[in-house]
């Protein structure tokens, strides 16, 4: 019982999810407002606990670890989730009208899973937390507007998710067979046994499935296309960030032992494939959501490249990239959700003339897109630049060149969207639309964080 204090933020969030579930049962009061109040209070309490009270160190038989870095990542996860959940509870669309409490309940459980992933240092807890992270997402992606398509997408997601879990379990089994231990900081990593390498391959394939690294990215575009639009801010960021944070801790652990170079080889193939093919895949996409799904692949590749870097400064740069990626992506999807006629068959052409309809949304979209593309003065530039810099120090010239080339290609498809927003005339008759106040508030928060990071990239390291 003594060690429960290590898990206080997570427990707060679980209590919050239960409170939301109860809220859905009570009929007398306005559910929307209580939902928002509960969300904000619960998340803030959790964030405050993370920032101030959370004790650091190993706990529960050394299966978990809390330190400043995990706390920072958890704060980012909670705040990203808070923004996306506020969007959901604010949603006016049919299928969200009655079930937003349930959605929030499920997603917060998923978030807790993600937080435990960040802390876990042992295979069994890792497998369980991966499952906690994934299962709510399978459920929710089946609740899309076009139920037939959603169920198809959810089935695919479930299928590949299960496959990856199988891989993960197999990885644990292989590792246990050699070392007799399930801790990832076990001395067995220093042996040059090929079974250990095989175990790592299994683990990395799991990670590739979860983060949609090339060549295990197939599910991502179909899921993005048919999952409900409101969960995309969550879906595109939180699981990815949690798992990449795990990869970071895993590899920092490996570097304490003499790493087998073949492990680096495997992950480098995944990185190179993701950065190059991910960029190329996005070029000809016309469907907006498929494009955004594919454009996440090179970002994941670059994040992994940062996470496996042995330099101590890589944690700072990882935090910077996480922050920018969460807030740019969440902001981008909130903007898209605010468009009145948005649906999942939305092509880039349908954004034509957006600037005339709503200049606010258009400008914010442009900021997020430029940031994701890595334009200088935006946060994305520093993210990509820093990763290229430390990759050069550790891995030589090839990776930085690849990152820069992918940034150049990514400019092509992100700016293609911006061109449609500003230059082309509206296809329909122009209509002004008003955006929800809360959505505007959420967007402004994201814009401020993106811009502030672009102007002062050291902001995050100063805060934590």
């Amino acid at each position, binding site marked *: 019982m003594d060690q429960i204090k290590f898990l206080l933020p997570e427990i707060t969030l679980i209590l919050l999810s239960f409170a939301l579930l109860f809220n859905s049962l009570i009929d007398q009061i306005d559910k929307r407002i209580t939902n928002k109040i509960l969300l904000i209070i619960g998340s803030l309490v959790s964030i405050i606990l993370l920032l101030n009270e959370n004790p650091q160190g190993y706990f529960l038989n050394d299966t978990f670890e809390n330190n400043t870095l995990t706390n920072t990542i958890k704060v980012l996860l909670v705040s990203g989730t808070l923004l996306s959940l506020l969007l959901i509870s604010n949603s006016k669309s049919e299928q969200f009208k009655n079930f937003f409490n349930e959605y929030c309940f499920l997603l917060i459980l998923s978030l807790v899973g993600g937080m435990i992933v960040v802390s876990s240092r042992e295979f069994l807890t890792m497998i369980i937390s991966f499952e906690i992270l994934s299962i709510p997402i399978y459920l929710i992606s089946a609740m899309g507007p076009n139920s037939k398509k959603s169920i198809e997408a959810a*089935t*695919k997601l479930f*299928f*590949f998710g299960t*496959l990856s879990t199988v891989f993960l379990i197999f990885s644990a089994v292989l590792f246990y067979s050699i070392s007799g231990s399930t801790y990832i900081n076990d001395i067995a990593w220093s042996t040059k046994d*090929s079974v250990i*390498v*095989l175990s790592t*391959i299994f683990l990395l*394939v799991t990670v590739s*499935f979860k983060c949609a690294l090339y*060549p*295990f990215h*197939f*599910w991502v*575009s*179909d899921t993005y296309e048919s999952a409900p639009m409101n969960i995309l801010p969550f879906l595109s960021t939180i699981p990815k960030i949690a798992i990449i944070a795990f990869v970071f801790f895993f590899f920092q652990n490996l570097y304490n032992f003499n790493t*087998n*170079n*073949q492990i*680096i*080889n*495997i992950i*480098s*193939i995944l*990185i*190179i494939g993701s950065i190059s*093919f991910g960029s*190329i*895949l*996005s*070029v*000809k*996409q016309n469907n907006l959501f498929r494009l955004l799904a594919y454009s996440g692949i090179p970002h994941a590749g670059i994040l992994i490249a940062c996470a496996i870097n*042995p330099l101590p400064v890589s944690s700072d740069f990882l935090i910077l990239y996480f922050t920018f990626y969460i807030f740019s992506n969440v902001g981008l999807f909130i903007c898209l959700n605010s468009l009145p006629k948005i649906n999942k068959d939305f092509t880039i052409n349908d954004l034509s003339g957006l600037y005339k309809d709503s200049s606010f949304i258009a400008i914010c979209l442009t900021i997020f897109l430029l940031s994701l593309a890595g334009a200088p003065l935006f946060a994305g530039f520093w993210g990509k630049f820093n990763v290229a810099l430390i990759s050069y*120090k*550790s*891995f*030589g*010239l*090839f*990776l930085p060149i690849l990152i820069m080339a992918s940034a150049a*290609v990514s400019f*092509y498809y992100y700016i293609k969207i911006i061109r449609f927003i500003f230059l082309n005339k509206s296809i329909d008759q122009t209509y002004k639309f008003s955006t929800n106040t809360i959505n505007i508030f959420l967007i402004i928060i994201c814009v401020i964080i993106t811009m502030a990071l672009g102007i002062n990239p050291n902001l995050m390291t100063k805060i934590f």
Partner: protein
Amino acid sequence: MNKSIIILSLLPIFITYLISFFNFKKLELETLNYIVPTIIYSSLLFILFSIPNINSLSIPFLTINGNDINLIFDYIDKNLLMSKVVLIISTLVLIYSSKFIEGEERRSHSRYFLFLSVFISSMFIFTISSDLFSSFIFWELLGLSSYFLIGFWNKDSEAIKSSTIAFWITRFGDLFFLAGIILIFTTAGTLDINNLNQIASNSNLDIKFPLLFIVIGIFSKSAQFPFNIWLPKAMKGPTPVSSLIHSATMVVAGVLLLFKIYPLISTSIGLLNLLTTIGIISSFIGAIAAFYEEDLKKILAYSTISHIGLMFLAIGISKPDLAYFHMFSHSFFKSLLFLFAGIVIMLNGTSKLENLDSSIKLKSTMGAILIIACCSLSSIYFFTGSFSKEYIIFSMIDDGLYIEGLIILFGVIFTSLYSAKILFTLIDFNPKNESLDKIDLKFIGPLLILAILSLSGPLTMSIFNKSIEITKVPHSILWILALQILTFSTFYIYLKTKDIINEKLYNFRSLSDSLFVTDKIYLEIYDKVFKSTSIFIAWFDRNILDGLINFIPFRIIYTSKKLMGLQNGQAKLYAVRSIIFFILLILLIIVTSDELIIGALK
């Protein structure tokens, strides 16, 4: 004070640049275009006259291998004298230009005055700059702005060609100049002219070749033989610009620089001989070409080459102060002649001398100005042009350079001949109608001021003598008389036997043409080498480089299309592919050894 003078002199550039923005709106700011620079330059002139002692200014610019490169601006008398001349003539030319440019398209006004301001400001700063690096910067700016000014009428293909030729020839020289500066810096470790002069006199530093490079740069900028092609071609530009380029600025900048670095130059006898030789050749062929030329402006251009040749000669025979003196006096009457030519050409619409026959009445202001200008040009005694030129010739005789002196005397005869040609062709001795042409005050005012300055030889000499001591040249009144008689008799003979001289001497035209064989070489180079190279480069750029650059995006889009086909929505295919990739990864581990794929971990 020393800093604010530099800032003040750069101000017209920014103001005219701003005005050029406003001019696109329908604000009537065209008049400001010339008023503002005129006021600023004249106030600058006033400051220079009223404040006697200004400290020199040194701005740190670069440090290379522990040696500093500073931008140094010295407000000493020998610099300021030329600055004042530049400012006087520039102000007058600005006033003149305001009228001259009136007929042009309105939008081009601001362009004209912008580049004129750049030109004047850079020349002004060049005169006071006292280190080779800042000299080079403003030297370059002079070349650039003159390129735009010569090509001001950019619808005329001839003007464009002329400006291009002027630009590349001067650029060619600038390259040598830069090489010289770099070599000097690497050997001497400083670019400060005062330091360099001290070093040159104290130690035996071998900077012969760098100096040769700088001298070649100066030759190209001053249009000396064999770089003399660009100056007559530059006559395609507007006349006020020609007046500025030829009198006090661009072409004499080289002479000024040589004057500043004379102690350095004088360490090498070979260089002095080179200067003397080139000076004599240029002076001689300039005078001959001027006589055979039929175009009024081109006559003046060749006459400039001839006069600048004299200045180089003076430096070559170790009389730099005489060169400076000649440059000083030459500025006034040459700008006067050009501005005068501008009015004549404007009134008659042509610059061919035969069409301008008897276009100026004897008894008019213009007639008087023409007589003063031509007398000054042929250095008739008491006029501004006379003293300096005579001193140069006398000092040659004094040094025992008789053969060279003889060539120069031939040059003097031809100078008198072309002066007489201009004078007696343009002037109408028996005007039929007595009515006088009304000429605008903006035209005639600057002319009158310059005419007064050209008229009063002793006055300009006394001004000059106050600043710099002229070396005493021993001469007797007899020599002066002999020269005057030579000049006057040439004038008289020309007047009496105009037609015969023209007929007889024109038979030797092929001779003068053969002197200008270098021109043909330059034009050949321009047409053959430059044009064909640029056509090839353009082809290479369009097809090979752009082709390569375009190839990659097309490949990417093509690959993207191909990859899209893989995403067909069938889960079992995805699963199969994932498994295949997984097996491939394992195979790869078996195949590859411990070597890293993305490079070494440090």
